[in-house]
């Protein structure tokens, strides 16, 4: 036993140093170099610049709470869409806090737009708190409000949502979804049109 321990010391120490250099430094640094060279935009976080300032990442969600934009989902990341504190709510299925939160959100939505079923993703928090997407139903649900506040033709806004729906690959890989930042940027781009 003692001989086994003694004979292990040099390999254990030297191999730790060698593998630390190879796997802990050389590998991630090499991948960083290659990634920055081959896919610089993605490696940097898929950032979107508009008029000289960064307005977001096409991959990561951001908070939209004003009436003139399509809203993202409720978020449990920090105070909402905190990019330094990703998190879900972690509330269990029989949690009173969850039931009260969802009930309150449903009530608010139904007061604003009575008589329509609320899409479930619009009142549930995502796993990351940074979900960039909403379901097509959740986007269509908001068309009336956005068109009204922006004084836009309802059909035009609906068409915009229609164009923004991403479909599953091969029909089953992924869910139909709408990237909210991308949709809102398109919305800003069309500007105001007179309502007939």
């Amino acid at each position, binding site marked *: 036993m003692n001989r086994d321990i003694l004979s292990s010391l040099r390999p254990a120490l030297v191999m730790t140093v060698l*593998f630390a250099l190879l796997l802990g430094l050389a*590998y991630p640094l090499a991948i960083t170099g290659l990634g920055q060279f081959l896919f610089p935009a993605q490696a940097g976080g898929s950032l979107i610049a508009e008029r000289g300032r960064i307005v977001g990442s096409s991959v990561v969600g951001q*908070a939209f709470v004003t009436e003139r934009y399509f809203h993202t989902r409720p978020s449990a990341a920090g105070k909402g869409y905190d990019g330094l504190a990703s998190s879900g709510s972690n509330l269990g299925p029989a949690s009173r806090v969850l039931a009260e939160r969802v009930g309150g959100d449903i009530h608010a939505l139904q007061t604003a737009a009575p008589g329509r079923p*609320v899409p479930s993703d619009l009142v549930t928090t995502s796993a990351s708190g940074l979900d960039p*997407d909403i379901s097509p139903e959740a986007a269509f649900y908001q068309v009336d409000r956005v068109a009204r506040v922006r004084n836009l033709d309802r059909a035009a806004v609906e068409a915009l949502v229609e164009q923004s729906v991403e479909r599953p690959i091969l029909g089953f890989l992924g869910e139909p979804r709408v990237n909210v930042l991308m949709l*809102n940027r398109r919305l800003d781009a069309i500007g105001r049109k007179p309502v007939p």
Partner: protein
Amino acid sequence: MTYQGWLLIAAFVCLLLALVRPMGLWLFALYEGRRTPLHAVLGPVESGFYRLSGIDPQEDQSWRRYAVHMLIFNAVLLLLTYLVLRMQALLPLNPRGLPAVGEHLAFNTAVSFTTNTNWQSYAGESTMSNLSQMLGLTLHNFLSAATGIALAFALFRGFARRSAAGIGNFWADMTRVTLYLLLPLCAVLALFYIASGVPQTLAGSVDITTLEGVKQTLALGPVASQEAIKMLGTNGGGFFNANSAHPFENPSALTNLVQMLSIFAIGAGLTHAFGKAVGDARQGWAILAAMMALFLAGTAVTYWQEAAGNPVLHHLGLGGGNMEGKEVRFGIAASALFSVVTTAASCGAVNAMHDSFTALGGLVPLFNIQLGEVVVGGVGAGIYGFLLFAILAVFVAGLMVGRTPEYVGKKIESREVKLAVLAIAVLPLVILGFTALASVLPAGLAGPLNKGPHGFSEILYAFTSAVGNNGSAFAGLTANTPFYDGMLGIAMWIGRFFIIIPMLAVAGSLAARRHTPPTAGSFPTTGPLWTGLLIGIVLIVGGLTFLPGLALGPVADHLAMIRGQLF
């Protein structure tokens, strides 16, 4: 449930089955120490490593020596990570100037990554510098996985060798697996992840002004290089707190599919490598069949429950499946499938919050870990865990027909059965013992976020995850306290090495034994009867002890949920 959802599950299983043979043959080549095409490039690195550390890769080690060398190496690695985390503030590549990681958290994290658990009591983006992620954590992701595969090779040799004194060389096994399997595959996967939108940069964060004019700071870092090995090595420790639910770790349905396949690829391939090693590929397929049956049953239950949704929310007028704690791009099916894959293997990465699953949807991940993660399982750990169950299964079969049990040409005697029971008993003993303790001590009761039975589930899940070296969580539990960091750290260490050592002892005693050719009276270990027996043993021996605990947690939670009783 939708047919698209089932199509995804079917596609996943088909792709996995297509991977088994090529992965198995590659692993078998490494097991035998054969030359691969990659030797032309990486061969000099391998021999250079041996020369510098004074290793003779031809030396055949006894099981004791194999175990001691593995343990000492892991202890040194543990120390390195502890030091890197503690000295984080003084070291470079810390763009956001994060302070040193606290004592009990650094201990917990170092144990966690050494044992392939990757339980995280911390949130990556607010705790770890880029250097800590790379040198402290990515390093372990490789080496804990390579250690697991090396240990599986050692047990294979126990079955395959005849009257042999040794079970191979730990250093050679571990180095070859790292250089010729993990590193090249991870390089390819990492580039794929970057192309798909996973960041890979030395920057710490970027400031954004949103369309509404609010400032948002996004954490960045060398994510893709860690993501690749995190999944392939069934480690599961996320770069970010939200793990594979974070859009930067898992940006699309395609990356999600690749991540799920990465989790299972090596574990499933090892069943084939085992079959090849004992000279009968059907032995490997029989094991995989039992694993797949258990896997599909679990997937069906979780998918069904999550798609059925939460009656409490239905009562409020919200239709459809349970979307609390799930991402839109994955939806119900891919979240349910991922949760079963990650807990069937000992990965522990999550793309949805298990804590917010329906009660029975969340029971399956918990139960998967309690079965010992032998449904495909962690890289190496899954197959050696399953072979321990196989030893018990031939023993039980032997009792029923009144013959000496044999398995793949080796007589199984009382020593092996005792050691297998010893290894398997570790799980219920530590999981239930520690959970019981935490459920009565004030320091333990301070942890759960949720009240009622779900709070108990959070504690039970934490110790299950730690002892099973899984690393996923009912993440509402506040675990970064001296009590939980300490207890979970000890639980992870026991859960890893108290299984490995009896397992290596089994390998040693089997290797020394003569070959027993099968006779007409031998119990066949390939057909459906055997597969059924294996499933039964896993469920009865592995699962039965946990039923009372599950009744107090998820089952009580389910009954409350359907009655609309809130906590």
